[in-house]
């Protein structure tokens, strides 16, 4: 199943549809569907594509079994540390109906400490 979509204003990716229904640990060596793998294969390439086209990147986080801090920090946290918090937040949107507080949680990992 794929739910990656492109509109005039945004690119959308779904973690459960395009990556894994059971997101894994932080690093690739720790197991499958890690945050590191998600960053390398999906999040970073799609973010850069969205930036190049002047579009928003919408990440749909619904439909999974839940996220460990390691996965979220290893993907979204790393993205913000690599590219800068302001740059990333200006282009990233979330869909988090299953877990409304997840967006605040992710932003807390992305903010510079």
């Amino acid at each position, binding site marked *: 199943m794929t739910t990656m979509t492109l509109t005039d204003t945004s690119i959308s990716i779904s973690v459960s549809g395009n990556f894994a229904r059971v997101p894994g640990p932080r690093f690739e060596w720790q197991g499958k569907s890690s945050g590191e793998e998600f960053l390398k294969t999906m999040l970073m390439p799609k973010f850069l594509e969205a930036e190049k086209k002047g579009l928003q990147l919408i990440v749909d986080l619904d439909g999974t079994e839940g996220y*460990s*801090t390691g996965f979220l920090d290893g993907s979204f946290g790393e993205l913000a540390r690599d590219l800068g918090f302001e740059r990333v937040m200006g282009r990233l949107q979330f869909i988090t109906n299953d877990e409304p*507080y997840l967006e605040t949680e992710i932003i807390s990992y992305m903010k510079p400490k």
Partner: protein
Amino acid sequence: MPNFIKNEFVSLIVAMILALILGIAIGATYKEFFNITWKTEVGLEALINVVAGIAIGIFLQHAYQKQNENLRVEKGIVIDECKVSIKQLRDIRNNFRTCVESNLPAKDFDYSFVNSFRLLSNEISSIKDFMEALDYPDEVIICDEILSSIIDYKTIITGGPEFPTDSYSPEEFKSGERKFDQINKSLHSFLVKINRF
């Protein structure tokens, strides 16, 4: 002392004071009552006044009762959600302790942790939305503080560089226990506060 007993006690004291004042006032002038002469006819105006007075009285009492009933129902919902949250928090803590005490890798518990944290933060988010809708800004702030502590607790348990391949270090265990105590206390204080509404 439970609130309803306190309310009953206060009502009783107020009723006694009123009865005392009334008794003193009437006691001093009760003979005058026998000298009152009533008019033989009651005017329409007076009748309308009496009926309108009774209608307003009934309406106010009904509105007050309804408001009280709504508050009781809302309070019950929040108390139930608080109890579920405390149970979720204890489940996380019990798994954490088992994992550390048995020296097992967190891998045996990782999805149980992730799922329990999800349920816990959803419960508190739901209480927060409810408090927002009922316009209780102080309680909304408390919910935000609890949610923030839950993120810290989740980070200790599922965010370490060795999670979920290894077990937890003694330092991680101590930090986790401290955070559990903090959230547990906050949830119990919140429960007591809601119970006093």
